């Protein structure tokens, strides 16, 4: 992560042609080794392709609308040749007896009423617009646009609006906290901090990056939640703000490191010029260096968003995981990643719920991929152009 900007600023790789004076056998060995290295280097590409293919594959019944085949097994499958299936005979006899028996209008009426009552109950629980589903009914994409995420209820609902809102809220809070803190801290350490302080700050932020996310999540669950609850008197101990603070702790090192790289890759001549025409160091930093590094800072913030959006354990432990939609920031929320983390362990392989969780994974993957695409092709190009053409 820290190296996101490296390729543009690093020295060019050495391109040294091997001398052709070597013996043919040696040259052959050389070729084989190079081929091997090339193949192993391709593992990263393969990994990305496989991740997309296989996460997509498990979610494909929903995305493509195909229904998985069901294997129907009846008792007659296990009959030996010549044996008679007594269960089938009994079923047939029952059917005939029912057909022969006089119809009982009262009983039929009662059955019908019972059915209607249940349908009404289901309707009352599910709501007017949403289809009444069972645990096994195939999920369509149109079912996703709903305000209730209750895949484990008797009539499951797979609305992802609360999850979208939850992810947006926690990410927004994380960003509001982390972006100013880390950008300004980077500005300070890049231009103003004494050398000694700078040498302390960088490793400490690296240590923060090295904290296991489960530890950060636990810290929020125990300490941050309690402190906020006592100081601000939230109704719920775990809510979007506590989760956002936790995510901010995970995002700060990313934004700091990349902003620091971006600031350092701004040509020093810009700053010297600003100082020479009479700007104070602070004016030079705020009005010259910071704007010059904007593309890099945008990249930093984007990657921070990606991290906050996809972080699992912190969101799982500190957001409260309630699947209701609402705009309040002090209510428990649930995010994409936390939903997968919390529910994947308990679903049956191949069930609609299982496919649904993989679909959430597809969304997460596409989101992070999109962010990387933007930083790679838009931001970096702009950064390079800026320094080659502009300054």
């Amino acid at each position, binding site marked *: *992560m820290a190296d996101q900007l490296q390729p543009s600023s690093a020295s060019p790789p050495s391109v040294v042609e091997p001398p052709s004076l070597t013996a043919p056998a040696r040259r052959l060995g050389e070729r084989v080794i190079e081929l091997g290295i090339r193949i192993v280097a391709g593992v990263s590409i393969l990994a990305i392709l496989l991740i997309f293919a296989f996460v997509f594959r498990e979610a494909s019944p929903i995305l493509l609308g195909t229904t998985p085949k069901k294997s129907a*097994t009846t008792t007659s499958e296990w009959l030996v040749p010549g044996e008679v299936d007594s269960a089938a005979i009994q079923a047939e006899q029952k059917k005939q007896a029912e057909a022969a028996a006089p119809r009982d209008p009262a009983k039929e009426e009662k059955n019908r009423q019972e059915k209607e009552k249940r349908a009404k109950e289901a309707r009352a629980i599910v709501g007017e617009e949403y289809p009444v589903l069972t645990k096994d009914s195939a999920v369509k994409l149109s079912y996703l646009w709903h305000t209730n995420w209750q895949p484990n209820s008797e009539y499951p609902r797979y609305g992802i609006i609360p999850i979208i809102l939850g992810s947006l809220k926690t990410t927004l809070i994380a960003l509001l906290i982390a972006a100013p803190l880390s950008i300004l801290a980077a500005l300070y350490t890049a231009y103003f901090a004494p050398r000694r302080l700078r040498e302390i700050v960088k490793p400490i932020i690296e240590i923060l990056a090295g904290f296991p996310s489960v530890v950060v999540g636990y810290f929020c669950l125990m300490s941050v939640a309690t402190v906020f609850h006592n100081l601000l008197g939230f109704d719920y101990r775990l809510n979007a703000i506590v989760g956002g603070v936790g995510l901010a702790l995970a995002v700060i090192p990313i934004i700091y490191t990349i902003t620091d790289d971006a600031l350092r890759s701004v040509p020093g001549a810009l700053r010297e010029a600003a100082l020479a025409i009479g700007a104070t160091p602070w004016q030079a930093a705020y009005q010259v260096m910071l704007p010059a590094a904007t593309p890099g800072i945008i990249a930093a913030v984007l990657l921070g968003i990606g991290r906050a959006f996809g972080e699992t354990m912190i969101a799982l432990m500190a957001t409260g995981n309630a699947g209701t939609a609402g705009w309040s920031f002090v209510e428990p929320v649930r995010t994409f990643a936390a939903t997968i983390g919390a529910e994947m362990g308990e679903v049956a392989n191949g069930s609609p719920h299982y496919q649904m969780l993989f679909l959430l994974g597809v969304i997460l993957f596409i989101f992070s991929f999109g962010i990387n695409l933007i930083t790679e092709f838009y931001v970096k190009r702009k950064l390079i152009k800026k320094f080659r053409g502009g300054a």
Partner: protein
Amino acid sequence: MSNGNLPAPEAAAELTAPIRHTFVESISRRLPIICTVIILAMVVIIVLNFLITGAPALSWEFLTEAPRKANTEGGILPAIIGTFFLVLLMTVAAVPVGTITAIYLTEYARQNSILARIIRFAVNTLAGVPSVVFGLFGLGFFIMTIGRGVDRVDWDRRMHVLRDALAAPTSPVAGNRIATISDVQKYLFALRNDDWSGEVKKLQSYPRGVSGPTTAELTVKYLDRTPELHWGKPGLLWAALTLALLTMPVVIVSVEEALRNVPREIRDASIALGATRWETIRKVVLPNSVTGILTGSILAVSRGAGEVAPILFTGVIYSAQSGPGSLTDQFMHLGYHLYLLATQSPDVDGTAPLQYATTIVLLGLTLLLNISAILLRSRLQRRRIVL
């Protein structure tokens, strides 16, 4: 913002005026310092918080005993062993592949090589994929596809052997004969060439009961419905490979940095003396970047030891009495253990000391690894200046 790189000439003239000590200005001067202090304070608070509250709960018994009473008592030894083996396997997979990728990127790829650019993009993407997606991938690819595939092949072989055994002349169902399930069970039990006890047990729930009739074909068909899972379920190997993909970018970035620090003159000298490119890499470049490879490995280990999301559905288990015995065993993990104690335990408040102690062990481990990586790297950077 895009046009505001440089102050306009008029603005520059203004800048020479004495500094106005406005409110905004004084804030904008102090804010960066305050921000830096806040970040440092947060790190210090987290570490101190866990050190002070957790240290008293740490004991020798805690580190060397297995958990008791649904994880509410006892120690975390199986979790320590599980984490160790997980990270060990992960390192064995990630470090060589990561190092070779870095070698390709720095030593072989031309500057404008398309392949190298795609690989770089893939590595950056891999670094940005949310860790829980790696978990889904591990489940969908390693377990459901590779593992189940291996199991299927193995099971088909076994069913083939079973078919042959049931067709043997001594078998009660040989040659389309009909026998009861219990006869088949007795026959299979007596067979010495393979262990069929699992199948004998499975036949117990045959749809028509143990006294029901069956043929060789039906017996095989029935058993074939529920293949035994060996690789096709969560286990240590799959969790380690999933983690290896996650930590590979860490290794690649570190090793690349180290390789770039080897001065180009050394390479040129080696080539000039008649060494081939691979000989130069093996005898000159790699020995000079051992520290960097080590740093990358340590960072990867630290990252891998702390990640919980990728192993949630690829191998971790609620509780175990010992460490994993084989590659297909499920295992306990420090981070997952902490998550369980803090959120899923029947007695969350009662296990608070255990939670803090577990956090200390996990945090201590990752801190130690990270600090050693930082020290190693600073040594590396200092040496570069000397060269």
